């Protein structure tokens, strides 16, 4: 029954799998589309991505090579045989993927990815600048504590989109010098930053691709995220959680500048009630 050549359809399918695998591998050259890294923990995130890319790339290529090879080789007829495996053979065969995948995947989580995860969610470094970002449909409001270095009291009842967007309490002396900006975030280069995250309405997600930062903002909870910008430049702040019809438009600007320039800029900002 065995014929020398596989039917055209088998060759085509095998070729398809080979081309698919090759193109997929090539396509991951899109790794160069990862935005430039501008935060301290960013390279840890990228390292995790690259690690998984290599591991899955190898598995994917080998798997598809075998798949294509089998399709090509075993489509020429021949005599199949009925040979179920004994449980022992099955189990020993299973060891290979079980061990390989367990090790490969947990190394990614614990060894490669773990340190960056701890950096993001660990202890707040000393000397961190604390700022507040308030998400609302469909704007980012940014608050700096002002000259007294303290955030004033806010209340939802005081929020007025035009006259008091974050709901500062005028009666609190710490509030009057708080600086409130629409959609613009200024950060000092090299200094750790802690961001208090609040939402006034629905879920939003505070995402700055270049800083490898993404943190959902849950209304009713005071969220937080921390990072250290290490590269001066102008970046974009995006909302990464569907928040309504204007979600796609909920963008903001992030300016990372050398610390002295940042300090000068901050001094020039008038408090909301000044």
């Amino acid at each position, binding site marked *: 029954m065995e014929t020398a050549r596989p039917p055209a359809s088998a060759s085509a399918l095998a070729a398809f799998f080979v081309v698919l695998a090759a193109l997929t591998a090539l396509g991951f050259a899109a790794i160069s589309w990862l935005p430039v890294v501008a935060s301290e923990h960013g390279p840890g995130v990228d390292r995790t991505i690259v690690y998984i890319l290599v591991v899955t790339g190898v598995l994917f290529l080998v798997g598809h090579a075998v798949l294509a090879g089998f399709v090509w080789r075993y489509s020429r007829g021949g005599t199949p045989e009925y040979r179920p495996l004994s449980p022992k053979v099955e189990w020993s065969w299973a060891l290979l993927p079980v061990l390989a995948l367990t090790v490969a995947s947990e190394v990614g989580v614990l060894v490669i990815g773990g340190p960056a995860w701890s950096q993001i969610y660990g202890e707040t470094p000393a000397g961190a600048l604390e700022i507040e970002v308030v998400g*609302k*449909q*469909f*704007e980012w*409001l940014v608050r700096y504590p002002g000259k007294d270095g303290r955030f004033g009291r806010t209340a939802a009842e005081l929020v007025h*989109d*035009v*006259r008091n*967007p974050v709901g500062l309490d005028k009666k609190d002396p710490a509030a009057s010098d708080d600086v409130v*900006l*629409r*959609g*613009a975030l200024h950060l000092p280069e090299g200094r750790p930053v802690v961001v208090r995250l609040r939402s006034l309405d629905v879920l939003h997600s505070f995402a700055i691709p270049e800083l490898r930062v993404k943190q959902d903002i849950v209304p009713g909870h005071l969220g937080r995220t921390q990072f250290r910008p290490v590269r001066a430049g102008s970046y974009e702040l995006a909302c990464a959680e569907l928040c*309504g*019809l*204007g979600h796609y*438009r*909920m*963008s*903001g*600007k992030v300016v990372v500048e050398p610390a002295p320039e940042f300090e000068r800029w901050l001094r020039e900002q008038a408090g909301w009630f000044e």
Partner: protein
Amino acid sequence: MTIRSSTLGTPVLGLVLLALGCGGCGGKTSVPGGGPETSGGGSAEAPKAGAKVWDPALGTAGVRGTVKLAGKAPKRRPIDMNREPRCHEAHGGKALDESVIVNEDGTLRNAFVWVKKGLESWSFPMPSDPAVVTQTNCVYIPHVQGVRAGQTISIRNGDPCLHNIHAYAKRNTEFNFGQPGGSAEATRTFDRPEVMAMLKCDVHGWMSAYIGVVAHPYFAVTADGGRFELPKLPPGDYTVEAWHEVYGSQARDVRVGDRETREVEFQFEEK
């Protein structure tokens, strides 16, 4: 053409009903503010059926006056339009908050003055022209206006960017839709009298406008000099109210006879 849910639904449902072999069960598509209606009927403040039709051209009575602000005029806060660079430049970077605008003589702009009570037994012809709200350089124009209940409101976006028009109302149906730059004008209607309905753009938090929806044509918005004028009224007893977005509202009772124009002054206080 921009596809909206309301226009999308019909073919989708049609397709499905067809496929389910259930032809002929088409539902009526509800399009909010689909077209102008000819009366503000159906609400508590609307004139009763069989009300006399008043032709304002015959009116001889009138109310006019001034809206003033006592106390120091608050400084207008600059608006940070940086996130929309084109709007920012259009205002030369100096756009100002419009919520309190005081004229040099101490009178107040953008106060909405209307006849709150006294016209229930009359009905009035509906203007055929729509009221217009325009979004230009990230500001609503006009900031305050009055419309008739049931009058078509035409909403235009003169900017190249997205605005969404989110109407907040208590008595009327609220609406919320996006108008990306270059969109065709949209029309909506407030069917019931309501002072005031608010329009907001959620993309640009500084953008807000107020619309007073009234069952009759006797309303005005103060401008230079803080003056308002409600002419050509039928003679009678009225309650006239002035509303301001920051200072709230005040009402005055006034009786006007034939060929008479009464002067009414409102004074709000800045604390």
